[in-house]
């Protein structure tokens, strides 16, 4: 009932929704299902009904429709009343999971991520599995429905986390074609959130991030005390766990004495940025102010990254929802990619729509998640790109798995991997 009280406190925020309906056409589940209960306005209406005592949190309606939300927050971008949907969703889900215990697989993942040891073991197993090449072979060959479909998706996701050989692109690597780089002026000290999935399965992205930071004159400080950011927990309504995890990071990063905390994973970055609201304390607020996405730091409004060697690839950029809608970082990743010589950026129709990744949505909501994912894959295939770039591990794996399932060889990378490759070709890293 503590959580009900928390939701009660949010009554003012709910009151902001004037029912205009602008969020409907941007909501991935409404687009697929056409049921207003699966739209942000509908879900807010259900939340309000609970607050008003007209609906029980354990009711099927409340459970089903809140659970079905991808949490992409596209609705926040178009909301003229500024309803903080993501914030409310987390609290509404907390109420939902308190009222009804979610099924095991849904409980398993956050539990795993919260425990450092178990997490390391699981991720190491994943890397071994990935190394065998079995996941890539299995993805796209398994039936698409039922248990096999879930397994196929999981395999596809795992396979999509492996490093991509970008130098196998259409043009031969033009090694060190540019002038030798003069040392850039030192810009400041930054700490990097190394993350859990990111460090376990996407160590290459973390390496690339470090490279591009250093080339651009940032000193990267090691922060050993950091851990999982807790985003997965917050999104699934486990606010207490999320707070515990967030506290660890706040104290670790606050002690590091850096100018900025850098994230290269949109979901984690969004959580760090919202730590102040989550923990309701000043230290968290102060740390949150310094958080930047890697693209912002390198290619924000007033800056451009150091230009490397040409990378003649046709790249489609897909903005992660937690970067585009939650952090409102929309132009920096594009500016970052545009700074790479000879890289051709192609737009994806409906790019700002969710890819359906949303944690393990494709596994918990196989059919619906598949439909959302296919819409994204289809849109990507219209672009004729060589590579997809997106700045979030979940999206990389979801889109990668979708492309694998469609029998496509297009790889999905983080934008900084492309920048790092451009630097590598220039002979800097």
């Amino acid at each position, binding site marked *: 009932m503590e959580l009900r009280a928390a939701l009660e406190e949010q009554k*003012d925020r709910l*009151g*902001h*929704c*004037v*029912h*205009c*309906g*602008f*969020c*409907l*056409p941007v909501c991935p589940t*409404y687009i697929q*299902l*056409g*049921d*207003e*209960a699966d*739209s942000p*306005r*509908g879900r807010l*209406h*259900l939340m309000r*009904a609970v607050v008003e005592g*007209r*609906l029980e949190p354990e*009711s*099927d*309606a*409340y459970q*089903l*429709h809140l659970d079905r939300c991808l949490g992409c927050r596209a609705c926040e*971008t*178009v*909301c*003229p*009343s*500024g*309803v903080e949907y993501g914030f409310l969703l987390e609290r509404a889900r907390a109420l939902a999971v308190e009222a009804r215990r979610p099924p095991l697989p849904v409980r398993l993942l956050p539990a795993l991520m919260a425990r450092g040891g178990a997490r390391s073991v699981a991720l190491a197993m994943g890397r071994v599995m990935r190394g065998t090449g079995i996941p890539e072979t299995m993805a796209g060959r398994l039936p698409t429905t039922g248990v096999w479909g879930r397994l196929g998706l999981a395999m596809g996701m795992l396979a999509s986390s492996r490093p991509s050989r970008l130098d196998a692109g259409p043009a031969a690597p033009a090694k060190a074609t540019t002038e030798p780089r003069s040392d850039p002026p030192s810009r400041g000290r930054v700490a990097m959130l190394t993350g859990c999935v990111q460090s376990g399965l996407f160590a290459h992205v973390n390496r690339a991030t470090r490279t591009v930071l250093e080339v651009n004159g940032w000193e990267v400080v090691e922060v050993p005390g950091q851990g999982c950011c807790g985003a997965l927990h917050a999104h699934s309504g486990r606010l207490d766990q999320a707070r515990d995890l967030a506290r660890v990071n706040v104290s670790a990063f606050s002690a590091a004495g850096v100018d900025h905390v850098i994230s290269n994973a949109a979901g984690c970055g969004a959580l760090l940025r919202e730590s102040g609201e989550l923990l309701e304390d000043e230290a968290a607020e102060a740390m949150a102010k310094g958080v930047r996405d890697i693209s912002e730091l390198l290619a924000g409004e007033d800056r451009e990254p150091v230009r490397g060697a040409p990378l003649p690839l046709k790249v489609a950029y897909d903005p992660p929802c937690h970067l585009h809608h939650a952090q409102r970082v929309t132009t920096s990743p594009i500016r970052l990619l545009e700074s790479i010589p000879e890289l051709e950026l192609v737009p994806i129709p409906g790019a700002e729509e969710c890819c359906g990744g949303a944690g393990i949505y494709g596994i918990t909501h196989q059919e619906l998640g598949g439909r959302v994912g296919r819409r994204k894959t289809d849109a990507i295939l219209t672009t004729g790109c060589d590579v997809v770039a997106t700045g979030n591990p979940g999206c990389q794996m979801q889109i990668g798995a979708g492309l694998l399932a469609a029998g496509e060889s297009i790889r999905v990378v983080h934008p900084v991997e492309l920048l790092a490759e451009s630097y590598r070709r220039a002979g800097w890293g």
Partner: protein
Amino acid sequence: MSTTLPLVPSLPLILRGKLADVVGDDHLITDPDRLLVYESDGLTQYRFSPSAVILPGSVAELQEAIRILHLEGRAFVARGAGTGLSGGALATEGAVVIGTARLNRILEVDPANRVARVEPGVVNTDLTRATRPHGLIYAPDPSSQSACTLGGNVAENSGGPHCLKYGVTSRYVQALTVILPDGSRVRLEGAGRGWRGPDWVGLFVGSEGCFGVVTEIEVGLIPEPEGVRTLLGIFDSLEGAGRAVTAIISSGLLPAALEIVDQETIRAVEASVFAAGYPTDAGAALVVELDGVEEGLDAELELAASCVREEGASEVRIAQSDAERTALWAGRKRAFGAMGRIAPDLLVQDATVPRSQLPTVLRRIGEIGDRYGLTIANVFHAGDGNLHPNLLFDRSDAEELARVEAASREIMEVCIEVGGTITGEHGVGIDKRGYMARVLSPEVLQAMSEVRSALDPSRLCNPGKVLPDELPARSELPNEPLPAPDSGPIEVESDRHASELLAAASREGVSVAIGRGRSSGAPPGPHLRLSARGLRGVIDHSPPDLTVTVGAGTPIGELQEALRASRQWFPLDPPGGDDTTLGQVLAEGLGGPLCTGYGRLRDHLLGATLVTGEGRILELGGRVVKNVAGFDLLRLTVGSRGALGLITRLTLRLFPLPAVDRTLVWALDDPAEAARIGMRLAATGSPIAALEWIAGPGSGPCVGESASDDAVPAGALVAARLHGNRPSVEAMVRTLEAAAGIASPRGLEGEESVEWWERRARREGTGAVSVAISSLASSSESVAEATRGWVDLGGRASLHLVGGGVRLDLDPEGESAADRARAILDEVVRAGGVTPAPAPELSGVLGVFDPAGILPGRWRESWS
């Protein structure tokens, strides 16, 4: 106001099963908890939970579901995105909601004919997104356009900021497929698709879902304006902004939009994510948007800016980029949502007043707010006189809620008092039913109710909406003796006179012919013939409002003459030219070349007085430019050819006289080549006022000189009429000459241009055989080919190159010529590619106006 219906009759199991069989279990929702989200639409004051929601995935499913609901006697209501602001999509009486979200396919975009066919669930902006690559847009742009559906737009006859220049939804809907309340399917087409008869499409648009559910909509598209200029004037007071609007209209400009937001609204918008950078201490901001030919816009902008400055603007800003323009509009368009920032609840009012009354009304709304201690934020389409006062409150404060309701009522009364109406674009829905009897006479309310009953006898389709439950009593019909039939045409002297005659004829069962005879034909047997010729002259002209009320017997020329002094006119050039009366144009649904640039008379018809076959006097519409108070019986009169009764007067929305009137004429030897060139000119997307292909005697190549009007050109002419300021007309001339790709044509300007078109209009419709045939603009070339023989016979032919449509006149000499003419007509019909629509089975509606069956609609078999 806060109404909850706690006990919803749940759906019987058998019916549930039947519906599930049709739409599938996944698309039938019956769990009362899940239904909660459908209890409100964009207007949250009311809550009515439906007994079920179905989400059909095809038209066949939708039709079958309605058939079942009809058989089971279960009420239903269609719902698009639920963005409506009058509660129109709410499920009263435990109705079943039919959601159209899954019927969201754009079926066809036909750039050559500038039309698109869509399903009802297509979101407004998605249509323009699909047509923009072809250089075309769908003009109506309600503020909710990023979410609202076209099905909802049709139901509500939606407006939007740009309808000042481009008109509301009704102007753009060309054809509809509707599932009637009994589950039967009808196809309704407008005049552009070959239909000649009452304007059924016009009646269905704005019927708020009470006449059936639309499953396919065919809409007209317009070329995207080449250039846009957006200006923002900051004022210390709301009145100053209101005066600037009047000044701009009086200057002869017709902006694409004129929008005002007041101080409270500015504050809300600036606090939202769509902050447009307005100063929050300003009393009001006026947005002026001008669009059209790029070259003409700077001069227009200059003129608008000077009007704004002269009325005391403290600051004038001009959007320098698309991004600035978009931000500026986003702030205005999303103002409604942004209100959530400054108060927990709001009531959005919607009313239209004659534009000249704006300053008065705004002042009085301010006084009402003060008196009730309420914050009222005003956002409005000032060019249309369409007000949206937003009353801010907190629902949990019952006392405040009561004050809001009282203030809201007073605002409505003020609007009605100055000659306005109770809703300009949001509809009546459930919210405004109580005001209906304040603006509509008992006669009109009764007629609306009967029309509804004719289409939905069991009142299952969106019950509890639009009309009040209790209708006020009508006055007695006159009881005068019937004059002797067949004693020649009777010139009606007044509404009362017409009412006496028609009531008597109905009583005695004597047929009545309306008009002077030529087009309406004559009934068999003894009959009365009534004419409105005597009802002649301007009754009221309000230059600042750009409106005029005239007697139906007024010839067009006489109207233009009366308007000239105020530099206004009504663009109309039907067959017969200036001698044609307005009543005739209305009743016969006539149009001319100017429809290309200005639309038809129906698009600018604000009001009319109809004396029905029964003798009832119906004052339809009003004199405001946007009016959705009740069903659009006004539009039904268009093309009705006397089937409903006698029209005695009309109110029209006027236009400023163009600064430059220029006509370009190309003469070509080959008629088909002329048509090809004409199509190239159309494809430029230039805002041409008229574009015609003309062949036959009297079309004369020696235009504008001492032309022998009887000279027979070998080939055909292409004539383009251009209106605008000097730079824009000159730019259009350059564009068209380049597109034509042949020698520079002769140009006519000013009076010469006017006279040239008048001469050709007068010749139309004068042949012994005179036919109008619908055709697709894209088949202009084959139509031109098909008319060669007609011209050889000595006939005249003309063709609208943008909208399509052929007019043919001939005085055949001898039987063989007549036979040949008939064969050619068949050929033209085939070449035109339009199959005239079959008459829909809606005769019950006509019976409302003519219960005794004395008027042409009943005794004449076909409409063509």
